[in-house]
């Protein structure tokens, strides 16, 4: 059915994360969690999958003694997202 669609992106939460990050420069983990209404555990797993695929960069640091995770989409991620949207459009046109 979705042979041409990127399996990394063709998942509800991962697609939501990518769609969010594609529109901003970078976002904190808490922001993504709030906007996607995902659980921290599930979100961490999906973010790790996107990172492993090279679609996002994840920077872990400390701010005011609290851990902070910042996510940013990579150029490879932008390319993959654009390709995914194109494939989606092609599929709908059929």
């Amino acid at each position, binding site marked *: 059915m979705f042979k041409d669609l990127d399996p990394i992106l063709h998942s*509800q939460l991962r697609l939501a994360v990518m769609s969010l990050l594609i529109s901003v420069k970078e976002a904190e983990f808490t922001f993504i969690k709030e906007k996607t209404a995902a659980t921290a555990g599930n979100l961490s797993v999906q973010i790790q999958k996107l990172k492993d695929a090279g679609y996002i960069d994840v920077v872990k640091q400390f701010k005011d003694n609290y851990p902070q995770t910042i996510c940013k989409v990579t150029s490879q991620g932008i390319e993959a997202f654009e390709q995914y949207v194109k494939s989606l459009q092609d599929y709908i046109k059929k």
Partner: protein
Amino acid sequence: MEEKQISEKESLLIIQQMIQTAKQEQKDDGKGWIIWGWLLFSASVFTFLNLKFDWVSIFFFWNLFGALTVILLSYETIKYLFVGRKEKVRTYTKDLYDKLNSGFFISLMLVIFSMNLGVEPVKGFALLLGLYGFWILIYGAVLNFRPSIIGAYITWAFAFASLFVKDFQWTMIFHAVAVLCGYIIPGHIAYNEFNKINQGETKTSV
């Protein structure tokens, strides 16, 4: 959101929803325009009244405005240095605004210095209005915010008209009206729109 198979329609809906969510982060609450707008407006109106009734030295209210600006900017700088940014998200728009703010204030200072070095205040204020118009137009264009785009052209119209004014009282009236159209009115519209969006978000999340 759990990981599950999604249809093509659901995919499009997710993309649309998330991009819309991110777009809301780019919205401005208009507070900056309202604060600076009313400060500039008050300085113009009080200078006009001062010229009429001869209360204090001509530029007293502008000097007061300058002192308030220094206090506000110092407060913002200290807050930035010691507290840091609290934003959970950085957008390209916000980054662009930061750069533009710096450019705007440097250009503003150049015009103000030039007035202190002999440029006639009547002409100097026309140049300042020209600068306001430039900044307002960029803001309006980036956010696709029509009231600011219209405000920018009105500000430029007053800037042009100010070049032909000989009486400083008229310069102050033109300046006040331009600030009203370019800063205050769009600022209040932006503030109301921002609150409406936030109220809508709160209602949907409850």
